[in-house]
């Protein structure tokens, strides 16, 4: 028998530090697989966020630069401009990217910086214990919206792909749901497109991945998947919002 699926060597030989069922491990695995498939471990740099995603520092075996909360796109801008031979991606959660780092992601995207952003949207702040995120759904209970997010006082979930797709510079913007194996495969193909844009030096690419937080949602991983199908995928539909453009 031949091994047809194996753990990539670009992941450290240790358990993740993520909670059971957390899809950060899954997303990190997808990136590690792509880095291995393209043979670019020696020139890939992950710019990590503040939040749960920072724990991928010890998961990836390739270069990592840890940024301040929300500032990964600015750090990646400085790094990639100074190291044009490197393949740079930022890895950011929804609070990091959509709240405190909104300015940094919008302007890096608008400059068409040469890096890609992997955006993990699980509608909550995981690391700090489940507070309302910019992507928390209307009515979703969190520790800071104990009665559910009320749009009259807390506004509506922010749709980052739709917001960024208004910009002219990004080469690729897409959202995928990690709910099903097919969704995971589509997500990987989306990440592949974004990575190939980097390999061709064509500028900024953004992939949003709809994820779960069993710990802070207070649901089993299986019930999280049901909630995704019934709730989050309705608000955050899959799709490619901006096709790769010719870069002059």
């Amino acid at each position, binding site marked *: 028998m031949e091994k047809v699926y194996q753990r990539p060597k670009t992941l450290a030989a240790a358990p993740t530090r993520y909670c059971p069922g957390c899809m950060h491990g899954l997303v990190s695995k997808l990136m590690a697989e792509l880095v291995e498939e393209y043979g670019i471990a020696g020139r890939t740099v992950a*710019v990590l966020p503040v939040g749960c995603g920072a724990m991928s520092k010890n998961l990836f075996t390739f*270069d990592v630069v840890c940024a*301040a909360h929300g*500032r990964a796109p*600015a750090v990646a801008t400085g790094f990639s401009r*100074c190291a044009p031979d490197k393949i740079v991606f930022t890895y950011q959660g929804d609070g990091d990217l959509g709240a405190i780092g909104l300015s940094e992601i*919008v*302007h890096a995207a608008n400059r068409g910086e040469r890096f890609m952003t992997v955006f993990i949207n699980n509608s909550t702040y995981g690391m700090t214990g489940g507070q309302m995120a910019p992507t928390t759904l209307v009515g979703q209970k969190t520790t800071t919206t104990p009665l559910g997010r009320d749009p009259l006082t807390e506004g509506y979930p922010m749709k980052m792909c739709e917001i960024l797709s208004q910009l002219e510079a990004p080469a690729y913007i897409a959202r995928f749901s990690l709910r099903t194996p097919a969704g995971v495969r589509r997500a990987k193909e989306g990440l592949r497109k974004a990575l190939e844009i980097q390999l061709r030096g064509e500028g900024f690419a953004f992939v949003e991945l709809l994820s779960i937080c069993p710990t802070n949602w207070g649901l089993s991983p299986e019930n999280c998947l049901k909630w995704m199908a019934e709730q989050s995928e309705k608000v955050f539909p899959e799709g490619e919002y901006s096709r790769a453009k010719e870069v002059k």
Partner: protein
Amino acid sequence: MERVFMKGNEAIAEAAVRAGCRFFAGYPITPQNEIPEYMARRLPEVSGHFVQGESEIASVNMVYGAAAAGVRAMTSSSSPGISLKSEGISYLAGAELPAVIVNVTRGGPGLGSIQAAQMDYLQATKASGHGGFRMLVYAPSTVQEAVDYTCKAFQKAEQYQSPVLVCADGCIGAMMEAVELPEMADPSPMKLRFFAAEKAGETRLAVTSLLTPDETQEEFNRLKAALYEKWEREEVLQEEYLLEDAELVIAAYGVTARVAKTAITVLREEGIKAGLIRPVTLYPFPYASFDRLDYTRVKQILCAEMSIPCQVIEDVRVGVANRAPISTVLHSGGVLFTADDIVDAARALYRKE
């Protein structure tokens, strides 16, 4: 050495390029705009990179990224903008990344006035961000010194893998003087080592300011504390002017120290034996210069600063240690000193004696 007539801000920018700076990110704010403007046209000439950041916060974090890539990098701003950069400066210190930050200071607090002032002394020397880190802080008094200490700031930033601050008041930034510019330094990438990465046995590039108990935040902090003590022994710079027979010692830095020198000439013509201690490094502070004074002769200390309330007095007090009375003569909010201001204050003190 090339001798040219340059504006302070532009001289700082050119000095940075000659010191090997190949990345600059900044955000517009008066009175330092000539620095990013100069860098925008100059850096491409030397295969460097200029980015106008969307904010001061983004700019300093771009510098963090550039430094992580091993490139000598700088950002500049003025007082309110430095407050915004404080987060990033703390991260630079925590991640052991070299970078030069220039503060062309103005009046505060809040938006304050856009004119020259020296209102950021405590921020610059005590806490340019959270977490108890320190930075070498150079306060030039002439455009030539702005050039010299910008170059030195790059050397020290690299040597110590630390952010270094050049604290130039708005006068230094705006005035034009003849300066000698140094030769171009080698801009090839810096070779950096990181405590956290070595502790974790990393063979890859791993830049972080997050030290878990495993990676021993306490050990890191002890190393840095030892480094700051080394700075206090080895990196103090000051100018001592006519102290040999001085009975009245003026403490002033930056452009105010130049005015003080003129005042000292006038005072000495009147028979008032005045001298000057000028901190060149605001941190580490030249406490020893004040400690060494012969207090059987020195009767008065006069702090002159473009800051109300006086800030430098907090360090002067430590150095003087109750051995002489300390008075102040102050302006702020864009009101510049004349030599007469200082002469009048000194005369009044002398009459009291």
